[in-house]
């Protein structure tokens, strides 16, 4: 692969997904994209780039972008966000939304489904407390391939042992040969949809909680700011945003502020978040 080829691939990936590949990531690009080239019947990366430069390369470009994504995820990853969800977010929303009894949650980089399913299991285990509530979990990701896996809800023995308590495995999964499948009931609590965070957020609706974890780290400053500002417009004033352990809003946006003593949890700043006041949002049929 020539430096020009690498430059082309970096630009393509950045433009389509926001993912920034630094100059020293050539080895990563090679290891991820060689299989894509081979699958397309191409000899190597130079041939792949040549193909991508030509017409009708749309499907191939999508494959290239998907192959460059990091999709590592586990159940209850980092634990703390899920404690915030159980102990801070849900108790506060159940007061704030007592009249509507409706809560909307968005997992903005859901990958193979562990995050939305962890939330669904939390909700399921709250039992009678949330009976009569309508709680929607929308899970999106740029990659169709990971969403297919998420929808199937089938995980390897390794995957169900990282972060998932054994009691939950027994309660919510069925053994399927060497693998484990999450129950139809939990699966039905999550709606999956392909979505690119670089796109317009209109049409997603308003949310009470947004999980956007371990994706901003891959973006440059400008892209981070853009994503956070677009999120701010669809989080209700008394809603919440959760970021990954290595991410923050500090220095990027005034729309959110860190919640004291709740690492990774952010709340909208008054007067900045939510396109319209709460009542107007309801009248607007959210």
């Amino acid at each position, binding site marked *: 692969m020539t430096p020009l080829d690498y430059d082309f691939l970096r630009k393509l990936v950045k433009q389509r997904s926001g993912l920034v590949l630094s100059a020293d990531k050539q080895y990563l690009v090679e290891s991820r994209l060689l299989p894509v080239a081979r699958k397309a019947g191409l000899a190597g990366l130079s041939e792949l780039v040549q193909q991508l430069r030509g017409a009708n390369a749309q499907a191939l470009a999508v494959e290239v972008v998907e192959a460059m994504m990091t999709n590592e995820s*586990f159940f209850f990853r980092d*634990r703390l966000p899920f404690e915030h969800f159980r102990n801070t977010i849900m108790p506060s929303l159940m007061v704030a939304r007592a009249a509507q009894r409706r809560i909307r949650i968005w997992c903005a980089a859901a990958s193979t489904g562990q995050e939305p399913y962890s939330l669904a299991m939390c909700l399921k285990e709250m039992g009678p407390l949330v009976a009569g509530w309508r709680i929607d979990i929308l899970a999106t990701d740029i990659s169709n391939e990971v969403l297919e896996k998420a929808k199937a809800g089938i995980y390897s*023995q*390794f995957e169900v*042992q*990282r*972060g998932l*308590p*054994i*009691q939950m*495995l*027994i309660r919510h999964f069925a*053994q399927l040969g060497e693998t484990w499948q999450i129950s139809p009931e939990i699966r039905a609590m999550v709606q999956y949809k392909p979505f690119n965070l670089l796109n317009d957020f209109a049409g997603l609706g308003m949310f009470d909680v947004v999980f956007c974890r371990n994706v901003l780290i891959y973006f440059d400053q400008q892209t981070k700011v853009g994503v956070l500002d677009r999120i701010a417009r669809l989080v209700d004033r008394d809603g919440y945003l959760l970021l990954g352990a290595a991410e923050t809003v500090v220095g990027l946006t005034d729309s959110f502020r860190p919640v004291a003593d709740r690492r990774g949890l952010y709340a909208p700043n008054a007067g900045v978040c939510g396109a319209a006041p709460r009542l107007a949002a309801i009248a607007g049929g959210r």
Partner: protein
Amino acid sequence: MKTCLVVDDSSVIRKVARRILEGLEFEIAEAEDGEQALEACRSRMPDAVLLDWNMPKMDGYEFLRSLRRMPGGDAPKVVFCTTENDVAHIARALHAGANEYIMKPFDKEIVEAKFQEVGLL
């Protein structure tokens, strides 16, 4: 420093487990079967037990039942670590007082996650 008793009839598994757990700052004792493990618990009750199921003399399940009846035997966190990976075995183990369950093969990440789960880390 917290103590962990590693119970497995395979010396290779004990060695692998020891290396992982020492990396997590545990002081390790070893036993080759349930009888040896009970003996070890009588002389010094550990904070944690990493427990195989199938072993000669006394298996892990019998050991766990005996341990939970011993004075102070409800204290240690017991994490099964076995090739028995079906729901029936897991349910039996939990019913007998196991705190967590690792299905072999395992690695450092799994041991760490499970020990975190039961509050040992």
